[in-house]
Structures are given as structure tokens and as C-alpha cells.
């Protein structure tokens, strides 16, 4: 079931009513309702893969319980590694089997040895990368004794499968989300209205901005060989906004939906394109994944401690693994490597924690220096996104090469697209202004003009939304 579907528009109010009016007297019933509705939500896409979630839930629940009773350090380690191997084993098989097989075959054939092995026709279960990391965080935290393991299987199942964030995050930490399933939820009007606003803003980002950009991005990336430099630059910029609005739109709807049920999820995006350096960008982009890698990979590796070589190694490991997490393609690995290269000078000059506050806080406009810093960081990000979007590294390189051919003849080319042409640029500009004006909040619906802003957003959803060519959320494929 997708957030931008009629099915979800019917599903959500039904679950909301059952949750607050039928099961509200009993915490266990509420949690059970969440589990059942989450399984329906996921099974709507493909019920067969529910067994994976259930299996993962049972394994990690049992390991958690055993860890709490186990004093022997070796046995505790064995339990931890069992959880890691089972979870990453599923992820590795479904997501990376064909990638490794193809690359082994290519590598061997390069040295003259032909290997006959058939790739498998594997369907990637939606959200596997997200819930795998979420359950892993539970086992690791219990192992480290930072979290008391739960004895309540229903609450644990609800934590693993919580439908608002099941298929595309935010990747929740057990330390934040699990205790919320053990506490009685009291309906909070303001929180629920705030949730509604987030859902509205998320839908606007997805249906109006991301899907409008997608039409152009698909056309431009499919025909990059015949496009001039200006169009290719616009194609990359459109993708930059498409991926941001697609993914942050999903996160907004997830966080907003959770608020309707009395839950608080962690913030996943914090206006990343207003970052003054790459380090700040990564503190603001896909925050739940960045912090996951920071806490469970980067810091255990030594983080920014140790000698320069170790620091460089750790930065490359975390960015390359992060790239590889997104998908089994060299394009993601190059994207990660490129970000590591961007990050390295900042780390080595110890400037990685320079811009911790919000840019131009309390002011209408940034300083010239801040503007230039944001533009430079944005430019670097746009360049990296080309690798993320392209079908292969070679295509990305050719795409960039064509940009630098400096062919600006024929203005903006849009091939056969008949939807908005210059209008999309105006729309993006208005979106940037709206984001800028609300950069110290979660959404733009605040202040005395909020009712007007809500009306205009709904009007834009109705008249500017893309409904003829509905696209899935990009991060479903990860």
C-alpha cells in the first residue's frame, strides 16, 4: 500500500477510528491492532514477504530475551552474531546475490576463466533494508546493555512492523520507539493536527514537486546523448529536487501518520540543501541512516579518533557502505565514494563540526558568504546525484562529459513532454522560498497566514499534482 494511493486514504481513517475508539482502553489491543494493520499494509504489496518480517521479528525477539539471561560473554557474542548473520543474510541474498554473482563472472572472465552461473530472478522485498537495520539496532543495543530487552512479543512485533515507517523509514532506534509501545497513548490534539500538516506537506512534496520533476528527469536521462549542456544541468537539478521531495515527502507522511497514533519518530530530513558544507549536509540528509552508520559502524571503527590513515579509512568505509546500502550497483558505490572525497578535506582540516546551527537563524536572508557556501555544497551534491540516478557509471560519466561540452545552443530541450516547461522552474523556486521561510520548523503551516498556506497547498495538490503518471516512492527500491 502506498501513501499516495486511494487504498491508504481509506485504510488510515479506519485504523485511526479502531485505534482511538475501539482498542483505546487496552494497550495490548492497541499494539495488536498496529501489528495486524501493519501486516495488512505490507501484505497489500506482496503477502509472501510477510514471512520474512515475521521470521526476523521472532529471531530478534528470542535473541533479545536470551541476551538478557546470558552472562557468558562468548555466548552473548554468538547470539549477537547470529542476529547479524540472519538479518544481513536475508538482505544480502535478496539485494546483493545477483550483483556479486555478475561481478564474479566478469572478474573471472577478465582473467580468461569462463564461469557458467545463472542469476536468479529475485524480487527485492520492499523495505527490507529499513526493517533489517531497525531490528539490528535492537539486538546491538541489547547486547551493549544500552536497552532492556522487551518480554512483550506483541510490542516488539509492533516496533519492527510499525506501518508508517515500515517500508522506507525513518529507521527507528529501539531506544526511541520501543518504549513508546509500552506506554499508554493519550490523544493529543495539537500533536495530531501537526501530524495532519506533515502529511499534507509530504503529499505536496511527492505529488506536486517530485512527480513533476520525475517526468523531466526520466526524459532527460533517457536521452542524455542528444541533450545540450543547459538541459543536462537542469536534468540533474530536477533529480536533486525529485529525490529530496520524494524521500523527505515520504518521511513527512510517515512521521505525520505516527503522530496521529500518538508516536514520535525521529526527524529524517532537516533542509539539507541549505547546508554550508558536506558535513552539514550529511547531518541533515536521511538522518536516521546517517546516525545509524555513525553509531553502529563509524564509531566502533574508531570514528575520527586515531591517526590520519585510520580517519581516512573510516570515512571511506562509512560512505561506501552507505552507498552500497542503497542498491546493488556500482553507481551507488561511486556516489558514496564521491561523498567521501567531498567530506575528507573538511575532516582533515577539522572543520566537520563547524556549521551545527541553522543557517541565517532569525534572519530573512543569508550573508553573501553563506549563500556562496550553500551554492557550492548544492553544486557538489547535484554532481553526485548524477551517479545515483544514472543506470551505469559509464552513463553518468558520459552525462557529465556532455554537460562540460558547453553546448548551450537551442535553449532548454524537453523532447515530447507537454507538461510544464518553464513553469516547473517557477514551481521549484517557490518551493525553495517556502522551505527557506520555514527552515527552523518541520513544515510551513505556521503563523497567521497558515490557513492561506494550507488552502494554497491543497489547491496546488489538486491542480498541479501529477495523477496521470503516478510513480512509486524512489526509496521503495532500496
Amino acid at each position, binding site marked *: 500500500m502506498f501513501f499516495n494511493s486511494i487504498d491508504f486514504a481509506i485504510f488510515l481513517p479506519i485504523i485511526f477510528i479502531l485505534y482511538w475508539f475501539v482498542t483505546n482502553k487496552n494497550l495490548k489491543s492497541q499494539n495488536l491492532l498496529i501489528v495486524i494493520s501493519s501486516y495488512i499494509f505490507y501484505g497489500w504489496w506482496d503477502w509472501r514477504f510477510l514471512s520474512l518480517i515475521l521470521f526476523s521479528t521472532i529471531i530478534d525477539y528470542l535473541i533479545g530475551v536470551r541476551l538478557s539471561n546470558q552472562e557468558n560473554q562468548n555466548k552473548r557474542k554468538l547470539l549477537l552474531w547470529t542476529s547479524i548473520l540472519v538479518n544481513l543474510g536475508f538482505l544480502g541474498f535478496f539485494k546483493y546475490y545477483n550483483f556479486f554473482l555478475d561481478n564474479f563472472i566478469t572478474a573471472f572472465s577478465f582473467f580468461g576463466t569462463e564461469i557458467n552461473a545463472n542469476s536468479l530472478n529475485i524480487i527485492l522485498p520492499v523495505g527490507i533494508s529499513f526493517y533489517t537495520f531497525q531490528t539490528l539496532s535492537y539486538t546491538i543495543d541489547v547486547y551493549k546493555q544500552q536497552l532492556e530487552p522487551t518480554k512483550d512479543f506483541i510490542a516488539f512485533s509492533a516496533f519492527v512492523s510499525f506501518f508508517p515507517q515500515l517500508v522506507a523509514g525513518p529507521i527507528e532506534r529501539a531506544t526511541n520507539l520501543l518504549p513508546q509501545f509500552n506506554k499508554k497513548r493519550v*490523544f493529543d490534539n495539537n500533536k495530531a493536527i501537526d501530524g495532519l500538516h506533515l502529511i499534507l506537506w509530504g503529499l505536496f512534496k511527492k505529488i506536486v514537486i517530485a512527480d513533476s520533476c520525475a517526468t523531466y528527469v526520466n526524459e532527460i536521462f533517457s536521452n542524455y546523448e542528444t541533450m545540450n549542456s543547459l538541459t543536462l544541468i537542469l536534468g540533474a537539478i530536477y533529480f536533486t529536487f525529485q529525490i529530496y521531495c520524494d524521500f523527505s515527502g515520504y518521511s513527512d507522511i510517515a512521521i505525520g501518520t505516527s503522530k496521529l497514533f500518538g508516536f514520535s519518530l525521529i526527524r529524517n530530513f532537516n533542509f539539507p540543501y541549505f547546508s554550508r558544507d558536506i558535513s552539514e549536509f550529511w547531518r541533515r540528509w536521511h538522518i536516521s541512516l546517517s546516525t545509524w552508520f555513525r553509531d553502529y559502524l563509524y564509531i566502533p571503527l574508531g570514528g575520527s579518533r586515531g591517526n590520519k590513515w585510520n580517519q581516512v579509512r573510516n570515512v571511506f568505509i562509512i560512505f561506501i557502505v552507505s552507498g552500497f546500502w542503497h542498491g546493488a550497483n556500482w553507481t551507488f558505490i561511486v556516489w558514496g565514494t564521491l561523498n567521501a572525497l567531498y567530506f575528507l578535506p573538511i575532516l582533515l582540516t577539522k572543520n566537520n563540526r563547524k556549521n551545527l546551527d541553522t543557517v541565517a537563524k532569525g534572519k530573512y536572508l543569508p550573508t553573501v558568504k553563506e549563500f556562496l557556501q550553500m551554492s557550492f555544497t548544492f553544486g557538489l551534491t547535484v554532481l553526485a546525484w548524477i551517479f545515483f540516478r544514472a543506470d551505469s557509471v559509464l552513463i553518468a560519466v558520459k552525462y557529465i562529459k556532455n554537460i562540460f561540452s558547453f553546448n548551450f545552443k537551442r535553449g532548454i530541450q524537453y523532447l515530447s513532454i507537454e*507538461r510544464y516547461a518553464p513553469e516547473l522552474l517557477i514551481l521549484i523556486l517557490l518551493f525553495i522560498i517556502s522551505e527557506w521561510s520555514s527552515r527552523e520548523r518541520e513544515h510551513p503551516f505556521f503563523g497567521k497566514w497558515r490557513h492561506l498556506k494550507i*488552502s494554497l497547498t491543497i489547491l496546488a495538490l*489538486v*491542480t498541479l*499534482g501529477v495523477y496521470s503518471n503516478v510513480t512509486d516512492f524512489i526509496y521503495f527500491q532500496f
Partner: protein
Amino acid sequence: MKKFVTYTLSILVLTIGLVYLSDFIYTEVYTHFKPRNKLQYILKTKNENFDIVFIGSSRVANHIDTELFDSISNKKTINLGVEGAGLNDNLLQLKLLINSNHISNVFLQIDSNFESISPSNIAISEAMPFLKNKIIKNHIKKYFENFEKLEHIPFYRYAVNDPKIGFREFFFSIINKKPATNPNAGFTPKFGNKIPKTESSLPKLIRKENIILDEIIRICKINKISLTLYTSPYCSKIKTEDYIKKLINKFPNLINLSKGYNDRLFYDCGHLNNQGAKIFTNNLYNETKDK
């Protein structure tokens, strides 16, 4: 909870209100503003007398220079060719036109369009604002499983056809932007010469009958309109002979103008350029002036 429910309901009411309002404004604009496509033009045309109406696809829109035809024939003609249109769309145009105008002759271009009985997406999208028109409604409703939704859910028809009748087209109608194809003149000349290297051919087999064409013939007969069928040329890279022969077997009166045009007279393989169109218009006049 009461505050939240009231707030949610007010958002819902606002959304429904905006959906109705948008639908109303879009429909009013497409109905009352200056036409930007040929369907809108037909709907606005009332009590006119046309000696000849040319209908078909872009191979009519790009080939028949009505100004030239009018000057050499001394007749009042109109070119209603639409890019991407099929016989089904031509039938709808004809039904709408004869509903409030007088027509003496219809010139219908046929070629491989004989193989299709479905309406084109372009023509259907352009018809969506006018679902209250009984002729349009009866003509297109059988092609849509979701016709009830298109007809009754406000703004749904505009949302699912947004590339053609969405905000962009709505905005252009309001500011009265000149369309790429002038619906009044009808003729859309093409300039240049882009002949592809690869060869192709018209379909090998011909369908037994085309119920849409039969309907066009029937309507013309009932309304005492003379119907002339003709076929336009393709460039040398497309093999046409076999198919055209089969077409002539079915319609012995078909005026075959598919040959005798040099490749330099083409914009692309299926469309003549401006120079070719003028020659073709002259030839069509000469072939039909005594009929």
C-alpha cells in the same frame, strides 16, 4: 479529539470545495475562452455552411492548405486534421460538426488508420471538459471502464489527463496564448526535410471491415453529405503498394495520391513539408474538381 475531528473535517470540506471550484473554473474556461484546439473550435462553430470539410490525422493537418484550396476552388473549406487522430476521432468531429452546421462534402484521408477503431488519447483528452455534451458523452463512454468516475468525480477528468488539459493548457487558455496549431485555419505546414535511413512498410494484412468507417459512411448518407475517400503519399522508405492495393479493392472510389512525390517534398516519411503540401493540395483539387 473533538478539536482534531473538527479540524480534519474542515480540511476535508476545504479540499472538496477546491476540487469542485477547480473543476467549475477549468470547464468554464475551456467552454468560453478562445479555442486552442480543433475540438473546441468545432463546438463553437454554429450555423456555418462548409462546402468541404477535410478530416483525418496530421496527414490532413499538414497536407491540406485550405487557403490555397479555397482560392483555386472558390469554395469554403475547413481542415480538421488532428495530430494522432484516428477514424474514431474523425467520427466524433463529424457528429459534432453536423449537429449545428451545414456540410456539403467530407474529404476523409485513409491509410493504415483503417486498422484502428479506438479513439486516440489526444482527442479523448481534448473532449474531457465537455462530458456534459450528449454527443461526446455517448461517443466516448464505451471506451472507459471508469467513465462514471470521469463524469461524476469533480476534477478527476482533468487530473488524469493533466499533460493535455491540466494547469498548463488551462493557463494558456486564460492568457489567450496562440496555440501551435491554429484551429481556425487548420493547416499546419511543416518545414524542413528529415527522411530516415531505415525502411518500413504499411501493414501486410488489412482488416475485414472497420465499423467506425462504416458509421462515417452511414452518417454522411443520412445527412446527404458527399463523402470522398483519398490517401496521401509516404516517402520512398515506406513500402505502401500492397496495402494501398488492398484498400482500393475495398473502396474502389478511393482517390490514390500515394505516389509521385519526391523525397525532398517530405518533412518526414509520413508528412509532406510546406512545399509538398501545396503541390498535394493542387493535385487533390485537380483529381476531385469534376466529381
